[in-house]
């Protein structure tokens, strides 16, 4: 069963086959959890989102058409909806312009002695959600621009420019530390 694709496991999933469900879950939970983690910044919320996503697969798996899209992109779509719900509640996603990314606390002051990786880890959660999303999809999950575009429901060019801007913003904020190191 482990050799079969998610799409091949769909019929068994719709019958409530636990083995099939476990294979798909173990194969995909990491990506969904990481995506939710990057987007919400909370391990607890990410676990909640992951649970909701796979509950939805349990309920609606039988109606999925493997010919029309991959199970993974469907899982991401559900995760995205769940994440947006959480982020909207926290007022961190909606209404935030893409070019406004100034954190409440300037991490440059707090991170004077931290190394670059530590700085990066601290800076990424301060980026607007659209940039965190593109980092999660293209950098962490190593998706192509096309795949990321389908999940984020934006044109490929937008993904490309968001990734470029995300890197530029990080570089700009890391500059003092980089200068010190160099």
């Amino acid at each position, binding site marked *: 069963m482990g050799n079969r694709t998610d799409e091949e496991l769909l019929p068994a999933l719709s019958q*409530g086959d636990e083995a099939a*469900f*476990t294979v798909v879950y173990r194969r995909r939970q990491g990506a969904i959890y990481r995506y939710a983690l990057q987007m919400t910044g909370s391990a607890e919320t990410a676990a909640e989102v992951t649970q909701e996503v*796979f509950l939805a697969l349990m309920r609606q798996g039988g109606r999925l058409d493997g010919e029309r899209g991959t199970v993974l992109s469907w899982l991401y779509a559900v995760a995205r909806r769940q994440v947006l719900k959480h982020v909207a509640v926290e007022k961190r996603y909606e209404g935030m312009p893409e070019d406004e990314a100034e954190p409440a606390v300037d991490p440059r002051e707090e991170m004077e002695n931290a190394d670059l990786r530590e700085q*990066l880890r601290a800076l990424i959660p301060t980026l607007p959600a659209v940039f965190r999303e593109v980092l999660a999809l293209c*950098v962490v999950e190593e998706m192509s621009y096309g795949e990321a575009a389908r999940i984020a429901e934006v044109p490929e060019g937008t993904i490309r420019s968001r990734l470029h801007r995300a890197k530029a913003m*990080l570089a700009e904020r890391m500059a003092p530390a980089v200068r010190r190191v160099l």
Partner: protein
Amino acid sequence: MDRQLREWAAEQRLESAPVSVELVLRRELRARRWKRRMAWTAPIAAAAALAVFFWPQAKQAPAVEPAPVAARSIEPARELLEGAKPAAPVVRRVRPPQGPAPQPFVAVGAWQAVEPIERANIVRTELPRATLARFGMPVGAGRWAEPAPVDLLLGEDGTVRAIRLVSSIQ
């Protein structure tokens, strides 16, 4: 920058959902599977149990022919289903199998006094006439051991709440 991002990404890839999520999901999957199985096996099992319980008694038909039971003991199924007001629940009526026009339902035993049923299933089966007479069904004299077609009204838990004759028995 790219190198740091790659390192950060590699670190992130180690993250995964807590084991508790998988446990919750698998428990939910089993519960859903059990519910689905019960949805179609419970009515059949209940009907079978009822038939097995009453069949031997029916074979020992009474020597003395009982008088036909008066129609006063027959409660219409609607009353049983809709029950007392004001909290009238939503009743999902299940269309019974096609066949002769049925008679009103007769509540069985203790269920005559209980709350209305929220969801019910109707199962068509056969029961001995002697059994039906015991429930106050208007069955005629003779052929006590012979089965007659009936509809069983089953509650959500699979217990028999009421019985009705599918057609009048001569």
